[in-house]
């Protein structure tokens, strides 16, 4: 069964450091999403890509967060500098053309000390 791959699974960093997360969506899926999930809450959208283009980044804190999907396949989410409040699970999801169902990866758990 096709899966969305994410790495690293766990990341511990100190505040003010830079961190990066990688996502490889299901092959052929044009739409890719990055969500942030704080413990005990539901996921919140950070950025949505259609192929290599950003469709929605209205909730992305652009002063410290950046996301790219250069070739329209895999994607990287970067945080620089990390703050204590960034501690959360970062989830990547992908969806196929015309398909409504999003498939999520296992997530990357970030702890900022």
């Amino acid at each position: 069964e096709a899966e969305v791959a994410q790495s690293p699974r766990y990341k511990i960093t100190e505040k003010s450091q830079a961190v990066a997360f990688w996502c490889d969506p299901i092959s052929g899926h044009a739409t890719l999403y990055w969500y942030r999930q704080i413990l005990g809450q539901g996921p919140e959208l950070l950025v949505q890509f259609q192929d290599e283009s950003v469709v929605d980044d209205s909730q992305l804190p652009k002063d410290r967060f950046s996301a790219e999907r250069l070739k329209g396949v895999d994607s990287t989410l970067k945080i620089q500098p990390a703050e204590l409040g960034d501690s959360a699970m970062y989830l990547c999801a992908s969806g196929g053309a015309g398909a409504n169902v999003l498939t999520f990866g296992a997530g990357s758990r970030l702890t900022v000390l």
Partner: protein
Amino acid sequence: EDQVTQSPEALRLQEGESSSLNCSYTVSGLRGLFWYRQDPGKGPEFLFTLYSAGEEKEKERLKATLTKKESFLHITAPKPEDSATYLCAVQEKGGKLIFGQGTELSVKP
């Protein structure tokens, strides 16, 4: 503003004790309502999509229903392995999902 509210926040059941989880929503253009299951430390796993009021879908001990303002996830004779957080989400016209905060279900043997 599109919004999804789930209740209760947490639910504890005995094995075999049936119950329901609620998801109420407001959205300007609903493309679909989704239920996901999330185990601790893992990503959400897709369960159901409902598109129109009156629609129902079933999978093992789970049954999801939809009205114009809310959805219910009915759990019949739950087992301990049904313990998880259940997330409800509405899909906007652009495709993104708006999630509720989830209901943490615990089923004790």
